[in-house]
């Protein structure tokens, strides 16, 4: 399944990309699965996701937890805790 991934703030800087479209392997069911797979793709991903639980995720513009299903997802975003306001 092709998925658009977008990155923000220091997650973007560590990954070295603003966005990319990836073909995830079968069995990648949740956001946590996706992160696990991304970390196998290179040091930059390992670095970006080194502290599990720090990087937040959103599916199609909605905040989600690591156990959220990727079913029907079009755009997955990864970013640090927010500091707006």
């Amino acid at each position, binding site marked *: 399944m092709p998925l658009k991934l*977008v990155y*923000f*703030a*220091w997650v973007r800087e560590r990954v070295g990309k603003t966005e990319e479209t990836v073909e995830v392997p079968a069995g990648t069911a949740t956001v946590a699965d996706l992160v696990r797979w991304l970390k196998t793709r290179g040091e930059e991903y390992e670095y970006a996701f080194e502290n599990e639980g720090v990087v937040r995720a*959103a599916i199609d*513009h*909605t*905040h989600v937890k690591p156990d959220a299903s990727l079913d029907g997802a079009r755009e997955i*975003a990864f*970013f*640090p*805790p*927010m*500091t*707006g*306001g």
Partner: protein
Amino acid sequence: MIPSVRIQAEDFDIASEIAALSEGRADSGAVVTFTGLCRDEGGRLQALELEHYPGMAEAEIGRVVDEARGRWPLTGLTVIHRYGKIRPGQNIVLVVTASAHRRAAFEAAEFLMDYLKTRAPFWKREHLKDGTAGGWVEAKDEDDTALERWSRPDHPSRESSG
């Protein structure tokens, strides 16, 4: 009442935002504004740079706005969040709430700010006066604590006073 949510690079004008809320109606007894400004951090900050997630920023703030409208009887509601480079003393965010009574206007504005701080997809990075690009601003635990109080069962979320 149609709430207004805007994500923009440009500055905003508080007086005209209040005027827009009050236009043609006299049922608001209370208007609260919150303006978040860029501090100079004791003189060492040259600017803040605000990155955001276009699309999600509008969607997430819209959800928080809907939640606020469900909790308090508001007669007006505006949220403006800027992005881009912002210098010390300049505006970052504006929340305006109007209601018949003051408690609702105050609580809704505080609620919106607590949620924006921790849920709106914006990230601040510092640029320092000495020319170095400072780091990304870290999220504060106390902002999460501020958020939690809105889910406590004893929290007064209804208007109580005029």
